[in-house]
């Protein structure tokens, strides 16, 4: 079972090296282990950021609706109080079909933190 999954993976990496010889020397050994996952993780982060930004834009209590990016902070930049932040996090949870544990929810201060947690918890319920 594991073998059959692994083999096409490895050959894909080999093929990638053959067709892109210049880039292949950039690969560090760590990246070689799971090149596909590495690649998708970065696009995931961009996609996740975009999705989170879209949710924030739909929230009518934010004061800076125009410029929201990965660095935006909920309280400092958007002027959200603790209850507003709860509402926003619930919206994000519903959109991604996830639930932030209590401890995590307390720590999420901005877009970057939130995206990071979502990206690293693909299996979270």
């Amino acid at each position, binding site marked *: 079972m594991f073998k059959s999954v692994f083999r096409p993976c490895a050959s894909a990496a080999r093929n990638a090296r053959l067709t892109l010889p210049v880039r292949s020397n950039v690969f560090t050994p760590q990246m070689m282990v799971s090149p596909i996952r590495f690649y998708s993780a970065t696009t995931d982060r961009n996609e996740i950021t975009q999705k989170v930004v879209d949710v924030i834009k*739909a929230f009518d209590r934010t004061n800076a609706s125009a410029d929201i990016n990965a660095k935006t902070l909920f309280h400092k930049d958007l002027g959200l109080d603790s209850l507003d932040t709860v509402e926003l996090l*619930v*919206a994000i949870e*519903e959109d991604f079909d996830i639930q932030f544990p209590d401890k995590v*929810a307390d720590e999420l201060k901005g877009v970057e933190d939130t995206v990071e947690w979502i990206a690293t918890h693909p299996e979270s319920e």
Partner: protein
Amino acid sequence: MKPELRTYRTLVRAFVRADRTARIAQKAAERKQQLALLTYRRMNIAREQAKKDLDSATRMKLLKDMSLLNKRVEILKQKVPENDKKLLFVQDTSFLRDQILSVQDDRHIQHLEDISAFIDNQREYDELIERYNPGIRMSQEERVKRTANKVGFQMPS
């Protein structure tokens, strides 16, 4: 996390989930209405365009109006009510905020938790009923229409 904030989160989550179906239906109805209005306006322009004694300036204006309307219809058609991110927020949280900010004792918190639990269970009950009885929410008119379609008839609109 403070207990009030946790209770607030439970409440907000319950309301967002419970309101979703009704809000989608409302948005869909509004969209349908807007589309009908735009179609009506397009028909009017088409009628104008069919007239023979039009000068070129008017003709240009009508053409422009028509393409504008077409664009609006396109945009509207792409707007799927289900995907509206506004659905992820409670429309008016002021009364929930007031409750949380005026919490005095544990009994009050418990009451708010009971409300969340009531809303959740009611929604889940509705969803189960809907799952086991598909079409139960359909209106009688819709039911008649579908039955008629099934046997090859069409209801006069």
